[in-house]
């Protein structure tokens, strides 16, 4: 199950529905660059519940046909130029949600149920623009009580970066238990990790609470600093200089192409 990053991204085919976490949970950026190098097409990205530079790069490189999330944000480096450009040129389809609705859709998938009810949302314009959400009456209320129902979101693949994995295919995600939901909601999960360990993580009682079992995992690539240039909660801080450089270059299509050339196509995989 321990494979190279190029083998890992081979498992992400054209048209895959690919779920990725929010930046604070750990982003597999090196795998994302490998995905662009491989020339993947027509991804349906689900940003759980938001996405950032990862989706910005994939969109800019023409790998994405649908972007489903509650935001694409580069944080203090906003606005995201290639995302904005793609919207302007209508080269991607948007499914705009709100954060808990992304979670609700994934949880429905995790639980094998067709939908989940969710409070809020009624009166927001995202409701009328969403292709699937419905309003129903709460069957347990005597008074009329409308509530939104969110259908299951079923990703083909979840992809993220984590601190540790063992030789049996278990992955330590620590306090980022949201990744457990992401993995369980997806058909399979691909992970890059900072470090491989030789002992079984599930057998260590202090680690076990933060372990994603190998049952859910389809492939692991050892990739130290695999979240660069983004912040990793269990590793390096973000590379602010690089992100500023990105922001500057990606303003134009030419600049973005130069960026891809230098940092994606010519960079060796770790």
């Amino acid at each position: 199950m321990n494979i190279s990053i190029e083998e890992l991204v081979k498992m992400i085919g054209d048209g895959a529905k690919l779920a990725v976490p929010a930046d604070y949970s750990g982003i597999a950026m090196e795998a994302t660059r490998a995905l662009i190098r491989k020339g993947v097409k027509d991804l349906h990205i689900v940003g759980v519940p938001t996405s950032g530079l990862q989706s910005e790069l994939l969109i800019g490189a023409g790998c994405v046909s649908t972007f489903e999330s509650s935001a694409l944000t580069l944080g203090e480096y906003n606005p995201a130029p290639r995302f904005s450009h793609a919207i302007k040129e209508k080269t991607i389809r948007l499914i705009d949600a709100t954060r808990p609705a992304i979670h609700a859709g994934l949880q429905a998938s995790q639980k094998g149920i067709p939908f989940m009810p969710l409070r809020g949302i009624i009166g927001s314009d995202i409701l009328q623009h969403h292709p699937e959400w419905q309003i129903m009456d709460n069957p347990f209320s005597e008074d009329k009580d409308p509530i939104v129902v969110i259908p299951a979101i079923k990703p083909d693949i979840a992809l993220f970066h984590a601190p540790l994995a063992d030789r049996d295919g278990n992955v330590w995600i620590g306090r980022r238990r949201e990744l457990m939901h992401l993995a369980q909601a997806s058909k399979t999960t691909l992970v890059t990790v900072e470090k491989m360990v030789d002992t079984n993580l599930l057998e260590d009682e202090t680690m076990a609470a933060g372990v994603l079992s190998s049952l859910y995992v389809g492939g692991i690539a050892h990739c130290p600093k695999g979240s660069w240039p983004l912040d990793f909660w269990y590793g390096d801080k973000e590379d602010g200089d690089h992100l500023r450089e990105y922001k500057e270059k990606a303003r134009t299509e030419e600049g973005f192409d130069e960026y891809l050339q230098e940092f994606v196509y010519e960079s060796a995989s770790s």
Partner: protein
Amino acid sequence: MTETTLKKELICFIANLLKDCNHVAVGASSPIPGAAALLAREAFGSPRHVNILGSVKNNFFTNGSQELFDCAAQGRIDAFFLGGGQIDGQANINLMGRGAYPDNTPRWPGTFGSAYLYFLIPKVILFREEHSRRVLVDRVDFISAPGVSDENIYRTGGPYGLLTNKAFFRFQKEKRNFLLESIHSNSSLEDILDNTGFEFEYSQNTPLTAAPNPQLLELLETHVVDKVKDVYPHFAQETFGIDAACS
């Protein structure tokens, strides 16, 4: 007043609004509210719990933002902050973009959790430093989250007030409008009227926003600043002149 002085005053102002809270949650890129929550916890012992999303310290969630949303629905979050590229006089907020969806120009990041949290957290403080007719509009182009809802819609939360660089408005739920509560010392009623794109209630004698308590300000600049630096290093450097990398 310098910009950094104003930021510190806003922090103190917000801290005072959080005194009656047990648990305050703050977004990852909201340094002023985040600093205010940390200050209030230090100064008043309440809020007892402060969760800053995306932070490792100052965050006890072990299930990411899912736990935030569940927690809000459980009634366990007392205050939160929302902003918006546009905010209107009914406290509707727009985080999606200017113009008609989906062809917004510009398109902003997206609605985040606003369409949910605005319904479920009792004290949502709208915070946007820029006070202009560009931001404070008569009617938002896209309702990411509505300020008020019909009676039959389940809603336990909503807007408490709107704080900008120039003033603080209280939201009046029954009247569905804002009341100008105080004007910051760098502004005036005329300035507010000139730069606000929506109708609001006000009195000719609207008081000035009280200057921050000097002890509170001192606590911020001495004890709390290190905690702010941990979470918002860039902001701390700009506002308090601290080089996060060297201290």
